[in-house]
């Protein structure tokens, strides 16, 4: 009788641990396939029609290099959460572009290839303390055209979609339209 009691409680502990692992696994898997319902009045967290138009007109792949410092102790928490939101938005771009927008996430740790690439792309770090540069920028390239956003500030979060779409449309337009002016003066 006593042995059965021990068995039951052991089984329960194992059962609880198993359920815990399963739930954590489900959460991790579901993190890939996320759906969002945007309840804000201005639909701030869904892609606008203008962005979708720009993405629909793409015919060549666009590479976006997203530089984000991952150093957990040095990056301040607001920047960390903002990094996550930027990544989410980039994911939406990739989904809406049907794969034409390729996202590459890089961590420019000191003396790494990613850091050199960041410098070449014109990404400027912010110095949080005297010796720790934090990178949070992106560069957008298509063929030989390149646009970069040196640093993404959380204050500009509402304009992030605009900045991104403008940069994409700039690299996507190979020819700049010529505007002519007629004037009566010689």
């Amino acid at each position, binding site marked *: 009788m006593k042995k059965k009691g021990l068995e039951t409680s052991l089984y*329960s502990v194992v059962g*609880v641990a198993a359920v815990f692992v399963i739930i954590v696994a489900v*959460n991790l898997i579901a*993190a890939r396939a996320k*759906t969002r319902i*945007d309840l*804000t009045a*201005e639909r701030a967290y869904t892609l606008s029609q203008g962005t979708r138009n720009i993405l629909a007109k793409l015919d060549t792949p666009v590479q976006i290099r997203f530089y984000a410092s991952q150093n957990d102790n040095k990056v301040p928490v607001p920047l960390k*959460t903002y990094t996550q939101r930027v990544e989410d938005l980039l994911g939406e771009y990739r989904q809406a572009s049907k794969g034409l927008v390729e996202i590459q996430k890089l961590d420019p740790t000191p003396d790494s290839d990613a850091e050199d690439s960041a410098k070449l792309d014109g990404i400027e770090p912010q110095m949080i303390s005297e010796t720790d540069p934090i990178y949070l920028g992106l560069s957008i390239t298509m063929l030989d055209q390149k646009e970069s956003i040196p640093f993404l500030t959380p204050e500009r979060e509402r304009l992030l979609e605009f900045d991104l779409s403008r940069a994409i449309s700039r690299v996507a337009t190979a020819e700049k339209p010529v505007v002519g002016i007629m004037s009566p003066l010689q």
Partner: protein
Amino acid sequence: MNNILTIAKREVRGYFSSPVAFVFIVIFLLLSGFFTFMVASLFERGEANLIPFFAWHPWLYLFLVPAVGMRMWSEERRLGTMELLLTMPITPWQAIVGKFLASWLVVAIALVLTFPVVITVNYLGHPDNGVIFAGYIGSLLMAGAYLAITAMTSAMTRNQVVSFIVSVMLALFLILAGFPPVTNMLVSWAPPWLVESVSAFSVMTHFESIQKGVLDSRDILYFLSVIGFSLFTTGVIIRAHRAG
């Protein structure tokens, strides 16, 4: 399903026939009003949103919700009515869910009674009501998560005070999991993936993300997971006591 509703009805009647529900609701409304208007200065900020209102919910719930839930199973064990309840033609799972839903309903009533704040902000300005709605959903889910944890701790002991304290500790851990002091303590010896997973456990990350006005499936899944796991563990504890 009928059994669950029957149990829930019995429990709700139990809550309102004692001072518990009324005291909880009144204190919750008073405190949330005080914090929103005096401490967080909703009027002085001049912004038509309810951020100063919702910001306090994690902390108000931390102490008030375990007070509502602590008697869920401790009472049954103390009075000896646990055996009586479990010999009725219902499954333990139905009893657990029914009791949980009843407590959740009490908290939901308190939340709904904060509607004057919504009317105030709508009268004085043009707030984004979609964001406010999302805020309420997030708040309700968070309260549900705390309640489920309290259900679990109340099943462990017949002493309500112990249940209260342990529940507050667990909820506090979930809140603080994303805060710098805890993550700094981990960063020194834990690999980065572990630090990130611990902060993903935090209630605050998911709550704040819902506050932005977006119902992300990940956040909802997080709260449902906490509720599901806690209620499952409650069932395990109850069954263990039955067997022993």
